[in-house]
């Protein structure tokens, strides 16, 4: 029996406290911000212009970071080291508004790839939660205690990672002429047996689940202002072997959730189950109400920051992106970010921190590390060479009819692999080490996703502390799988070695994620966000941020329905809108539609499930 499995109790508490670390702003003369403006009539819009409008059901919108005081950051760090709840108090009804905000911080905004809609959520009330608890208790390989008295339950379904990029992958690595046969064969296996072209594409699905798990745990606390806690179960739903062992129970779960055979055929599977319940008094998270709101609004604002001013900006970028800023990420911050990472890995694998430190393979490859410059150059060259080979080897019979769309996209991908930042990390795992630690590989991959997201969040939070008035932020992060996938193409088809092999030559490493940390005061152009929200910006190539009705189904009165889709209305509310952190143009002019409108109060204040469905509160609670 593996080390993390079948826990009657929660894993031991291992997380070390995090401390706030201040990022010193550059000299005042270098305080630049995005200062985006609306394109004038007749002027061509670029990614640096403000969007003309926003018509979206997503709770996110175009947001700005809210500056936090050191005291607030210190308090907020409690949200980055949450331990598992040990028990739930008597369940209480939840109002729709809180459920919406919880989901906004979870499945609707979790750091998903721009073009992967790989999650959907089913949310069930107290009666079904009871039944689900029974099923959870019977599952093998549990990673946490199944708690009684949950108020409601979220079940997340996930599907294999498929995007236009993965479509391209099917065309790679074939022999001339034979490719007429091998390409359709691989496409068939991918479509119907969900077999990935390269392993790291398969891992992406699990990285995303881990990222979501970490977000959901926090989302519950923020949305309920510390009154509720979430118990996330992931381990029983990892790996084919475990799914086979738990098959009958998983089928029962799927049946409760109304998963159709068509959805199963598309690869949708239960990825995690989150029990949500009232926190027992000693496990309530006590922060000021205003801080919960600010944190919620900031989580809506955090974005991937790809541009390091004066380093990798485009030629046509506005002036403020061109000058280097005399500021840096303090070494203490990277230490704390590492601590956050190991905390999360230990938390989600149920082991101790020392084991986490041993298992997570981490390499820093920035210019400040010895030989870092050369190493970066080598990596960039390797990735570029692979891209060129890919573009060259795409079968013409597939490329030409599409107007060379495949080879063009390949070349465009180079941008996505830009390794620019003051700290650059590659994270991965060793399969043999994971096996030796009795950990399930997929669970460890999920934990890497969660850990890197937690570490990123720590950095983003520090980048929001004492932001000088005109600036957008003090630090941002860009998390990527692109370089890893590109390296994996090289490994699978062109005999390249793993990115981490240099640092871990004896451990058969598999690199999984790369992130770059940047100290700067100017946020990326809003065009980067717009492509997530405006279908006209990128067409069908980019899926859009989901509205609640697209991602979440809820069971009420025995019937299924999407949330925030009622009487012909769809959600237009932005979560935590009351914090007012919306992008505006010069003179404070608004992006039309950006602030959204309120979901009718009569509906947002009503209980999601009738009060009578909840057992009466016990006196001792």
């Amino acid at each position: 029996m593996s080390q993390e499995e079948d826990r009657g109790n929660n894993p031991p508490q291992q997380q070390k406290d995090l401390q706030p670390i201040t990022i010193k702003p550059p000299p005042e003369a270098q305080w630049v911000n995005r200062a985006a403006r609306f394109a004038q009539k007749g002027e061509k819009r670029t990614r640096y212009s403000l969007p003309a409008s926003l018509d979206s059901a997503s709770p996110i919108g175009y947001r700005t970071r809210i500056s936090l005081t050191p005291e607030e950051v210190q308090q907020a760090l409690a949200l980055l080291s949450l331990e598992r709840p040990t028990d739930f108090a008597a369940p209480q009804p939840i109002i729709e508004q809180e459920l919406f905000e919880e989901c906004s911080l979870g499945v609707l905004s979790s750091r998903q790839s721009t073009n992967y809609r790989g999650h959907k959520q089913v949310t069930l009330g107290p009666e079904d939660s009871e039944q689900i608890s029974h099923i959870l208790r019977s599952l093998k390989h549990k990673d946490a205690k199944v708690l009684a008295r949950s108020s409601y339950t979220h079940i997340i379904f996930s599907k294999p990672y498929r995007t236009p990029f993965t479509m391209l992958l099917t065309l790679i690595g074939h022999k001339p002429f034979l490719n007429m046969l091998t390409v359709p064969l691989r496409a068939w296996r991918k479509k119907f047996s969900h077999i990935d072209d390269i392993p790291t594409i398969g891992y992406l699905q699990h990285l995303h689940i881990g990222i979501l798990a970490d977000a959901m745990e926090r989302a519950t606390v923020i949305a309920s202002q510390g009154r509720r806690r979430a118990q996330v179960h992931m381990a029983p739903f990892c790996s084919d072997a475990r799914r086979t062992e738990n098959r009958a129970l998983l089928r029962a779960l799927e049946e409760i959730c109304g998963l159709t055979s068509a959805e199963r055929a598309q690869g949708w599977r239960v990825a995690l189950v989150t029990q949500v319940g009232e926190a027992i008094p000693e496990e309530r998270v006590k922060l000021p109400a205003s801080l919960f709101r600010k944190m919620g609004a900031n989580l809506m604002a955090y974005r991937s920051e790809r541009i390091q001013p004066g380093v990798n900006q485009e030629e046509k970028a506005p002036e403020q992106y061109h000058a280097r800023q005399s500021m840096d990420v303090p070494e203490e911050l990277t230490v704390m970010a590492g601590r956050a990472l190991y905390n999360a890995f230990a938390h989600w694998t149920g082991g101790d921190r020392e084991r986490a430190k041993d298992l997570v393979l981490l390499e820093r490859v920035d210019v400040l590390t010895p030989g870092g410059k050369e190493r970066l150059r080598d990596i960039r060259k390797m990735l570029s060479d692979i891209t060129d080979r890919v573009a060259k080897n795409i079968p013409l019979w597939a490329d030409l009819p599409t107007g060379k769309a495949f080879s063009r996209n390949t070349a465009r991908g180079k941008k996505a692999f830009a390794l620019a930042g003051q700290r650059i990390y590659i994270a991965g795992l060793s399969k043999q080490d994971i096996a030796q630690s009795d950990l399930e590989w997929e669970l460890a991959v999920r934990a890497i996703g969660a850990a890197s997201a937690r570490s990123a969040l720590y950095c983003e939070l520090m980048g929001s502390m004492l932001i000088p008035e005109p600036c957008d932020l003090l630090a941002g992060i860009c998390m990527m799988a692109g370089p890893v996938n590109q390296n994996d193409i090289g490994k699978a088809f062109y005999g390249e070695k793993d990115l981490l092999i240099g640092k871990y030559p004896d451990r058969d490493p598999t690199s999984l994620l790369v992130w770059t940390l940047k100290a700067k005061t100017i946020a990326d152009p809003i065009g980067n966000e717009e492509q997530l929200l405006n279908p006209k910006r990128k067409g069908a190539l980019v899926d859009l941020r989901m509205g609640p009705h697209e991602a979440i189904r809820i069971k009420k009165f025995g019937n299924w329905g999407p949330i925030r889709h009622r009487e012909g209305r769809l959600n237009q509310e932005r979560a935590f809108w009351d914090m007012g952190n919306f992008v505006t143009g010069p003179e404070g002019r608004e992006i039309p539609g950006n602030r959204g409108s309120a979901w009718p109060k009569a509906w947002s204040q009503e209980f999601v499930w009738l009060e009578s469905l909840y057992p009466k509160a016990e006196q001792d609670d």
Partner: protein
Amino acid sequence: MDSVQRLEFDTLPSLGSAYRKVPFQRKPGIREGQTIPRIEAIVKGVKPEAQSIFEYAKICRFTSDEKHIPSIYPHILASPLHMMLVTHKAFPLKGMGLIHVRNVITEHRPIDYQETLDLLCFVEGHREAPKGVEFDLHTQVSSNGEVVWEGITTVLSRQKGKGQGNKKKEKKTPLPGGDPDCQRSALWKVPADMGRIYASVSGDYNPIHLYKWTAKLLGFPRAIIHGMWSFARCVAEVTGDLPERPLTYEVEFKLPILLPSTVLFSSQDEEDKLSFAIHSKDGSKPHLKGRIYSSPKA
């Protein structure tokens, strides 16, 4: 002073019959020293139809509330009486070309679905306006003798030779983007058939609201949506944020909303009132502006 003209109805008259009269009526206009005489229209014992209220609420996006009728709905009940007033032989202005420019509604208390209502509408007097003459159509809705809802519908009758100077005004280039300081802003898609849908509930089949070709006959490039739909839609949007009744709802209609359109709704909660507006999608042209505030209790 002219004597009061009184119209009493047993049931609500149909809007259609009044509309049919409009094109054929010859009216003298308001002569020097004259004004609009008081004309009253009364109907007692009106029971709003539940289905009609439901449809109205759905179209205007009021949330389904089984107890009370939507705040703007009584205007629908009063509309046939308004038409009876302006098509009355003693009414001196032509019905064709009248423009609904403003509306003020005071909702003294929510009206229950089940209540039987008495309606009194009247018009009296006029005032000069930059583009013509304005007059008010007053509505009082009572239940068991208690006035529960009041409305003033201000209508403009354009007069030749008036308001020409305004056209020469220099047009300012509007700044792109929505109004600063709004707290909410959302884009609404108003479909091409919204005029017909609203007409089916309100009974207001004025051709300018129906089809492009019927609107063109009356000088509009496309059909336009009813102002009272836009107003009701705004009120529905902010209903959840409103305090207890009595409330006063004010609206000023600016440019008509051509169908189909995407428009920008925005609202702002101020200390003692909630203001709202509809602009064109880019925020540059105003279609409607209004505010809602608590009115003193009677």
